């Protein structure tokens, strides 16, 4: 059910990006899709009753070893690391898309994509 929720959120963003006429709305749809995919990837590595992948004092066995209880309860650290990258990159792409929107508004005076059909040199 949690996976289906992520998919529903993704389809909401896709609907917004496909159907809406406003350029900023299209950008918002793409952002919603990014959130849905990030949450889905984190959900794939989740364990019920798991612990965060941070070694505390209670999880040390010896000087450099972690206890087997930690290994058996830890959530997956790999999707967390990669989603961290993805979130930061989404900020960069958001800045680029909004810059395009602002320039288009300055040139054409509207966000409506059906009005931006005529090309000007």
């Amino acid at each position, binding site marked *: 059910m*949690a996976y289906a929720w992520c*998919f529903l959120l993704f389809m909401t963003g896709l609907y917004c990006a496909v159907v809406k006429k406003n350029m900023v709305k299209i950008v918002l749809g793409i952002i919603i899709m990014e959130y849905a995919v990030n949450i889905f990837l984190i959900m*794939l590595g989740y364990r019920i009753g798991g612990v965060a992948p941070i070694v505390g004092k209670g999880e040390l066995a010896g000087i450099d070893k972690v206890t087997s209880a930690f290994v058996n309860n830890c959530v997956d650290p790999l999707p967390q690391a990669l989603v961290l990258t993805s979130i930061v990159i989404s900020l960069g792409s958001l800045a680029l898309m909004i810059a395009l929107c602002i320039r288009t508004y300055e040139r054409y005076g509207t966000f409506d994509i059906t009005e931006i059909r005529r090309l000007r040199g």
Partner: protein
Amino acid sequence: MELFIFYALMAFVLIAAFIAVETRNLLSAVICVGAIGFGGSLIFLFLKAPDIAMTQIVVEVLGLVILIRATISRDLTFISGDREFFGMVVSVVILFAIFMAGIGIFRQLPDFGTAVYTRTPEAASQTYVSRGLEETGASNIVTSVILDFRAYDTLGEATVLFASIIGATAILRKKAKKLPEDLDE
């Protein structure tokens, strides 16, 4: 109780997404996307990913500033109506078909709460969890993955970020560069 709060957060995020899609006012839509981002940050916290929750809050604040800069002080145009009605109906039908097909695929995944990597004992994540502290000395396993095991990935991330910011500044530049023939006149 914890699970109830988790499901309540998920419902909150979904409602915020619906409002963001359907509202007419652009500023309201932007603020609803901010609500999705902060609710998503809390969901990350429930999914035992504190690093991502912190990053999400920082990125969300910056993204809201950028989005509000784009929408405020424009005329908040109420662009009414969608695209052509026939195209809208067709796209909605196609999206619904994709949704129904995708739901079937999710049944093949393991249930929510059993991590995928526990099925394969040879997965890279097992090595990171069991030997990460020993090999890198970082008590936070996520840090040891992004800064040591997969450091090239972080380097690529910095490159992509740099390129996108260069693109944004080039697009937003007010004065165009003068061409050589303009200089001669």
